[in-house]
């Protein structure tokens, strides 16, 4: 069953087309690795799927919701790990976790379980402002899991974690499909993430290579994408896309 369907997605940040006709299909239970260089559009793609960034053209369906019509309806059912922790400095680790879990409609037991899973129980009463960078990363990951999401969007999730944290995250990601989660991971740590992923796609210049299911690939893609992109792209990017 498709959890994510992206077609000819064009997203413009400023004057730069961060997505230039991206296509992507993700089925339930998949762990998809998004690989690609810096500035390729991986982060933007994840933020589009989370509904944080609107599209200029194309379509996106996530968890059965058309994000062109409504970018908010699916948010309780997903978690996004970005470069920020999305946490409050003056709340403790436990309070941040419980707030996020309850906002998503998850139980407090789920928040407490994430607290233990990520080894945060000993610092549960420490304010976010007092945490080290690595502890903040663990908290951000714990918040994502505490929400019991159906779709987990991870942007460089290993960054800032120590060796134990990385191994723990890998184990949790491997177990994620069994918990009913579908995972998209944007990462530069390809060797590590390839051991977890069930599929790898490459993102370059705002286009996802290998994103569509094989049976659908006969349909035109670049043709759909290039028209809207040409209108907004700078000459250099336009050359690449065209």
């Amino acid at each position, binding site marked *: 069953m498709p959890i994510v369907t992206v077609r000819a997605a064009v997203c413009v940040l400023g004057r730069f087309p961060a997505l230039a006709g991206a296509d992507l299909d993700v089925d339930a239970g998949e762990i998809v690795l998004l690989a690609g260089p810096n500035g390729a559009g991986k982060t933007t793609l994840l933020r589009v799927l*989370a509904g*944080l960034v609107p599209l200029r053209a194309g379509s996106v369906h996530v968890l059965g919701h058309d994000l062109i019509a409504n*970018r*908010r309806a699916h*948010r*309780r*059912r*997903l*978690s*996004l790990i*970005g*470069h*920020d*922790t*999305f*946490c*409050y*400095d*003056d*709340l403790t680790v436990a*309070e941040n976790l419980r*707030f*996020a879990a*309850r*906002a*998503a*409609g998850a139980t407090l037991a789920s928040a407490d379980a994430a607290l233990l899973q990520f080894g945060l129980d000993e610092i549960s009463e420490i*304010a*976010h402002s007092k945490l080290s960078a690595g502890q903040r990363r663990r908290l951000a990951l714990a918040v994502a899991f505490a929400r019991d999401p159906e779709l987990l969007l991870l942007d460089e999730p290993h960054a800032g974690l120590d060796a134990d944290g990385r191994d723990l995250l890998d184990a949790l990601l491997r177990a994620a499909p069994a918990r009913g989660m579908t995972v998209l991971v944007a990462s530069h740590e390809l060797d590590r993430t390839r051991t977890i992923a069930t599929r790898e796609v490459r993102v370059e210049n705002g286009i996802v290579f290998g994103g569509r299911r094989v049976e659908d690939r006969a349909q035109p893609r670049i043709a759909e994408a290039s028209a809207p992109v040409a209108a907004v792209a700078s000459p250099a990017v336009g050359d690449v896309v065209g």
Partner: protein
Amino acid sequence: MMQLLRDARLVFVKDLRIELRARIVIAQIVPFGVLVLLLFAFALDPRRGMLPTVAPGLFWITVLLASILAVGRSIAVESEHGARDGLRLSGLDGGAIFVGKVGAIVAELLALEVLLLLGTFVLYDVSADGILVLTLTALAATAGIAATGTVYGVLASGAKVRETLVPLLVLPITAPVLLGASKAFESALSGRSGEAWPWVQLLGVFAALYLTVGFVAFGALLEEA
């Protein structure tokens, strides 16, 4: 409806907890309000006879200025570590977030107003008459100020100059609150509570208007912030 109330309570408790921890209201906003009240009293001291007359206006000017700080703080807590994105991603209803944030600001301002009112009685030589009018005026005016501040606060939250933009947006819009609340207080404190009711009604209408606008529009405004 229950879901909405639950979401609003979650945001309300979160914002109040952050304020209690950070002690910005206690350590900065309350002293600021008391200081403004004191300075007005010193400035007008030579003509002490007029203090009871101007006390209601000075009280509400002080509350309005303090509310700018409270609103600014309410916005600022969402701007660190991507918390605004976190709030958007939380899945909480935009209207519920608005109600929760307004509720927290109202609670903070009401606490401030109680202290300021006590200070006004002492410094400005006025007596506590018409408690019902004073209470209803304070509730309606504070709700109106908090709702307006929250709407314009989120509107300005993406701007680099939000600290200066918020007062520029909020102060002119809340002029009717300043006028209505001052007149209602003036009537109540001078023992003519009956004359206050039209002003209390005006404050109620203003508060209802901005609470409705904020409830409906806050989600969309948060998306664009």
